[in-house]
């Protein structure tokens, strides 16, 4: 990579390129807007990248790699970190031998998410350092810094980005590679790695000492800088907000924070003293403002209405002029819809016709909530359709309970729905339950990623395959049906009626490849059949793309 080359990269691509240039040995994650492109680009640049069934597993895999001394990258959207937080919190205690960079891609404004949680809180809760780049060049540069910090303090680093950093393209000049790598090698450290209470107690103290040392280091860290300007207005900011600030208040003096946990409080105090009015500009929760005020530094936060949604230049201008008048509503765009030829339509028509109470889940099929179907009654988080559906069944009067159906996609089923299926077998409702798995052989919603049920790797090469009906049957469920919903027949509808009436546990796998990529899927399958290495899975070749038998 030549020093002078100017590339126009998204933040996601810049993270991926830096990971490649910095010698990251393994990237793992689970798709989720706006993080998905990181691993795809990393693989494209020649890095080793893989999709895990969910974020918790991805976190554990990368913790393992970092225990072995390698540089590892774990990527997910903000809600993914909820799933992965269990291993993360204790990895803060164990620390790592190599580097572990955890990318959390937050989605203020919810361009495509179910909530707008602010994951900067996770850095505080877990006690790990956090970096926040403002554009693609910083995303590139900060990855090197994150690796340096992770290796220096032997701790996972939270690399927090937002939709506008991930998906905006800005100019990047890549540079030379990082410190040379050490080869991965296992070193036994039982007291450091096995978190039984007698080991974890001192580990917690070590973690707090590391944080104190990092805070000290952060006071003069190059990842924070001051943009000189008039002393009458000082602004403390980070992430994408910095860019809006520079445009909305070109004359202000700005403290731009890149290393945002633990915060460099002395530097912040000095800055606040140096200016007349000191305003904090940040998207989402008042994370900076609360922390700075708690440290006894007088700064102004933003009015509450700016907690919601993304910031942009006009909103920053409003914050600076303390304008809390109602904001002009943006005209609504055209909402997405289920594709005209999507087979999910047949399923939702049937659910609507039978007046089912639908515990839904997250994926393209969530669009079944919209007209003309309006056939979804709950959607909480990935995998929740099972548990929520079972809970409804447990307490509703029988005439209502019998109409409850859980609906989930194939990728979501393997993500966390599978645990709910175990619950269904273990604590079955008296009226039984019906689970519909919409298996379109891909993770469609986030742009068609592979998952363990497709039997292909991130790069679409043959891999082991989890056969969903086999999983269900192995749990002892007798009614497991595989069906290809087709228009012009009422096969699906009849099967659904039969299952609802049975008062037993039933799993209906509605299988048909996503029409947006049906051709591609066919090609992958053909390759899979030709590939001698995939002989073990050869028996599955007939399934996607060809009508599956209606099995009892």
């Amino acid at each position, binding site marked *: 990579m030549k020093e002078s080359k100017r590339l126009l990269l998204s933040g996601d691509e810049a993270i991926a390129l830096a990971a490649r240039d910095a010698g990251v040995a393994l990237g793992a994650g689970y798709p989720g807007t706006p993080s998905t492109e990181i691993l795809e680009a990393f693989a494209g640049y020649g890095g080793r990248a893989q999709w895990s069934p969910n974020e918790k597993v991805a976190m554990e895999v990368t913790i393992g790699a970092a225990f072995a001394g390698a540089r590892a990258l774990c990527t997910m959207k903000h809600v993914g970190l909820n799933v992965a937080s269990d291993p993360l919190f204790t990895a803060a205690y164990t620390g790592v031998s190599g580097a572990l960079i955890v990318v959390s891609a937050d989605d203020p404004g919810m*361009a495509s998410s179910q909530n707008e949680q602010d994951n900067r809180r996770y850095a505080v809760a877990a006690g790990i350092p956090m970096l926040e780049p403002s554009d693609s060049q910083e995303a590139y540069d900060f990855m090197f810094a994150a690796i340096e910090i992770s290796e220096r303090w032997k701790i996972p680093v939270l690399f927090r980005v937002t939709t506008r950093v991930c998906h*905006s393209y*800005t100019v990047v000049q890549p540079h030379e590679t990082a410190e040379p790598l050490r080869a991965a090698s296992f070193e036994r450290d039982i007291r450091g790695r096995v978190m039984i209470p007698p080991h974890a107690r001192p580990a917690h103290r070590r973690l707090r000492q590391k944080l104190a040392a990092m805070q000290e280091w952060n006071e003069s860290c190059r990842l924070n800088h001051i943009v000189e300007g008039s002393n009458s207005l000082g602004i403390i900011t980070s992430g994408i907000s910095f860019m809006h600030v520079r445009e909305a208040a070109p004359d202000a003096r700005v403290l731009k924070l890149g290393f945002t946990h633990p915060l460099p409080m002395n530097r912040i105090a000095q800055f606040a003293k140096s200016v007349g009015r000191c305003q904090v500009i940040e998207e989402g929760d008042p994370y900076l403002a609360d922390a700075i005020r708690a440290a006894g530094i007088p700064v102004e936060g933003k009015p509450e209405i700016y907690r919601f949604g993304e910031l*942009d230049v006009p909103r920053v201008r409003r914050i600076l002029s303390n304008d809390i008048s109602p904001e002009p509503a943006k*005209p609504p*765009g055209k909402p997405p819809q289920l*594709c005209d030829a999507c087979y999910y339509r047949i399923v939702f028509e049937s659910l609507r016709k039978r007046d089912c109470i639908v515990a839904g889940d997250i994926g393209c099929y969530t669009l079944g909530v919209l007209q003309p179907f309006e056939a979804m009654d709950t959607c909480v988080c990935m995998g929740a359709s099972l548990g929520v559906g079972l809970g409804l069944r447990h307490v509703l009067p029988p005439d209502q309970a019998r109409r409850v159906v859980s609906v989930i996609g194939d990728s979501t089923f393997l993500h966390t729905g599978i645990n709910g299926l175990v619950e269904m077998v273990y604590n079955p409702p008296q009226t039984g339950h019906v689970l519909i798995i919409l298996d379109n052989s891909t993770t469609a919603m986030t742009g068609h990623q592979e998952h363990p049920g497709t039997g292909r790797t991130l790069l679409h090469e043959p891999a082991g395959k989890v056969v969903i009906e086999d999983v269900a049957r192995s749990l002892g469920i007798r009614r497991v049906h595989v069906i290809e919903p087709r228009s012009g027949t009422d096969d699906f509808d009849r099967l659904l009626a039969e299952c609802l009436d049975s008062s037993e546990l039933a799993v209906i796998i509605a299988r048909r490849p996503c029409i947006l990529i049906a051709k591609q899927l066919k090609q992958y399958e053909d390759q899979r059949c030709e590939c001698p290495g995939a002989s073990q899975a050869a028996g599955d070749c007939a399934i996607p793309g060809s009508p599956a038998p209606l099995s009892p």
Partner: protein
Amino acid sequence: MKKAINVVVAGIGGQGVLKGTDILADVALRAGYDVKKSEIKGMSQRGGSVTGDVRFGDRVFSPMVPGGEADFLLVLEPTQVEPHRYMLRAGGVLITPDAVDASRLPNRKTLNVALLGTLSSHLPMAEDVWLEALRAGFAESFHEGNRTAFLAGREGRKAAGIKP
């Protein structure tokens, strides 16, 4: 160019909105400007509306065009004109499919490229830089069609007698 130029491209999924902003941003990059491009990807493939912002100049900060500050608004789908009109500044230029003579397009898929042609006639970047970016942005087999569409869009305006 001291003040950055703001362009917003709008349409619905499948029309090549994002491809259009890719090309425009690449042209600005090739011409040596600072460039930022922002898009909201979500469920664009499911027919939802899609917009992309491109800003270029000596120095660009926010990647998003502030409402009411777009110098140019390119709309590929007529129903999307009104929802996005608020983005235009007073005196800003609206470019819609009416700007090009549809009969001169090799096919409907090249509308995005044709509208870029119309836009190009307002902007300082040289024609060959546009053509280079078009060549680099698509498979070679599309280039002739794209070139035709681009030039139709670029000349369409001249034919209509509007001055850049």
